[in-house]
């Protein structure tokens, strides 16, 4: 019964996405073209990758408000390494390590420091942002060589590189959530942390790792963003956490934790990307865009909650 309901929810989001696409294709001829659809996929990549990490965190029963700042921080680390003539692989590894390390600090603050995730990551939001500003003196670091820029501009069979990166992140993430012990623990902790602890699971360790995963996802997104803009700005990523949370929630993952999955998140991210793209194509005013996006988020959660609470 619950399985049917869960797949019903996911079907609902997919139907919503496809419905939105059909609607937009009826309203403007420019939406449903191969080049625009690829355009949308490329634009959605950054938020989708961050949201993948956010999904892990939300399933485990927590929240991560610092992802936007971690994007800026990892981007800055990446850029400074590249500027120092470090090899591409080393620079990317350094950025990922920075993201994961700061994410781990979030996790430690929450597990050992016993801070609520909201507060711990709120603090990190400021701290990471400050570090990014500090490392760069407030100015963006830009101008990288073509090899690096391929991360964003490269294409294979016309499909932009960021799409492949997103795909890889989601496939790996889905495997981890569904097939590994760690993934099980993520769901179990979110569903009932005390019962999980009593079952002998090292909740502290695994919770910390979840936040490291979120930091890592932010770092990967930062790599794509930096390549795309050919610049790492310390003020990048402001409010990106909201978009990531929105994508996760629209995708059907419950903010209470314990259930959900990446399949829903990618659809949620696509819904937001398609929406923004469509509103631009239709020339809708920016003010109205903000209202529409907010309404979609609220609407999606309302539908999700009502589906969940429908009991026989």
């Amino acid at each position: 019964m619950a399985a049917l309901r869960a797949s019903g929810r996911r079907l609902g989001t997919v139907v919503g996405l496809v419905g939105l696409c059909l609607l937009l294709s009826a309203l403007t001829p420019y939406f449903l073209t191969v080049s625009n659809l690829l355009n949308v996929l490329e634009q959605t990549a950054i938020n989708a990758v961050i949201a993948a990490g956010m999904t892990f965190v939300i399933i485990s029963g927590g929240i991560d408000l610092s992802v936007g700042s971690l994007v800026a921080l990892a981007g800055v680390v990446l850029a400074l390494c590249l500027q120092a003539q470090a090899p591409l692989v080393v620079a990317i590894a350094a950025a990922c390590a920075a993201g994961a390390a700061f994410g781990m600090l979030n996790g430690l603050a929450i597990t050992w420091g016993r801070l609520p995730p909201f507060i711990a990551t709120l603090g990190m939001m400021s701290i990471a942002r400050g570090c990014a500003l500090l490392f760069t003196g407030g100015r963006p670091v830009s101008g990288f060589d073509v090899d690096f820029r391929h991360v964003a501009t490269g294409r294979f069979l016309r499909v932009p590189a960021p799409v492949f990166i997103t795909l890889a992140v989601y496939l790996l993430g889905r495997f981890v959530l569904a097939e590994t012990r760690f993934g099980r623990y993520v769901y179990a902790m979110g569903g009932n942390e005390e019962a999980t602890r009593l079952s002998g699971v090292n909740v502290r360790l695994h919770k910390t790792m979840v936040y490291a995963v979120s930091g890592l996802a932010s770092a990967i997104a930062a790599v794509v963003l930096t390549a795309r803009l050919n610049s790492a700005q310390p003020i990048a990523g402001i409010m990106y956490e909201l978009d990531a949370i929105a994508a996760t929630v629209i995708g059907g993952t419950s903010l209470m934790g314990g259930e959900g999955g990446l399949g829903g998140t990618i659809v949620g991210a696509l819904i937001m990307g398609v929406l923004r793209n469509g509103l631009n194509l239709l020339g809708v005013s920016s003010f109205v865009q903000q209202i529409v996006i907010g309404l979609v988020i609220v609407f999606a959660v309302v539908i999700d909650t009502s589906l969940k609470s429908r009991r026989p």
Partner: protein
Amino acid sequence: MRLIRLATLVLAAAAVAACNRAPGPAAARPRVALVLKTVNNPFFIDMQRGAEQAATDLNVDLVVQAAERETDVDRQMQIVENLIQARVGAIALTPSGSRELVPAVGKANAAGIPVVVVDTRLDKQAAAGVKTVTFVGSDNYRGGQIIGEYLVSASGGHARAVVLEGIPGHETGDSRLRGFRDAIKSAPGVVVVASQPANWERDQGFTVFQNLMQAHPDADTVFACNDMMALGAVEAIAAAGKTGKIRVLGFDAIDDARRAILDGRMAATVAQFPDRMGRQAIESAVKALRGEPVPAEIGVPIELVTRTNAAPGSVK
């Protein structure tokens, strides 16, 4: 489970089939897009007004878009990409990032869409590989100088100034600051005691200046690189009960700033005529569309605004 897969497949197939439909013939009127940094600033709203007027006069359709937040540079790039997909005829762009928007301009080049850069220049080095039709804007450097010169004369050569910068890396702010600092070099008694960014925003102008007032109680002047931040500083001064004791200088000459000058809460600002910029931008874009020649730079005049000429509408 099978039902879901089936449904998704059917819908995907329909989508792919629809893809092969070519978009209809181009609209009768050419479409020009104006991509602003933000619409939360009266400066850009004036620019939009000028552009809309020009569009009506030239009989073209105008699409105006901006990102939700001025700091969201990726979003502005997305808007440009989407407008390219929407096959607009030309794009007039006020870049949120002097270097960061270069790739977007590159994409427009590749699609054969002419780009007019407005108000904030692209970084020369970064933009080496892309083509733009023209730059429409004021000489921000000169503007900074004008206000610096005003400070030197109004203070009699002695002032302790706090500077509120815009978003770091924005060419507009950088140029204004350079102009200001160069102008005050002539007066060794005019000193900049602190300089901090307030990211073009009014509330940040308030907070940052409030803190700087604490750190530098002897400061008697604040120069904010735009009026929004200056007005924030005005409120901070009022909250501290020091109205009239600290000289406030801004940039942009938005209506609220003019009123503040008339009230005596601000001393001076620099008018940039954003509506003229908007008009020129659209006119250049249309010219480029039609294949007519456009000068590489179109300067829009600037003017110092003080009590004498602060009444709105007193400058055209």
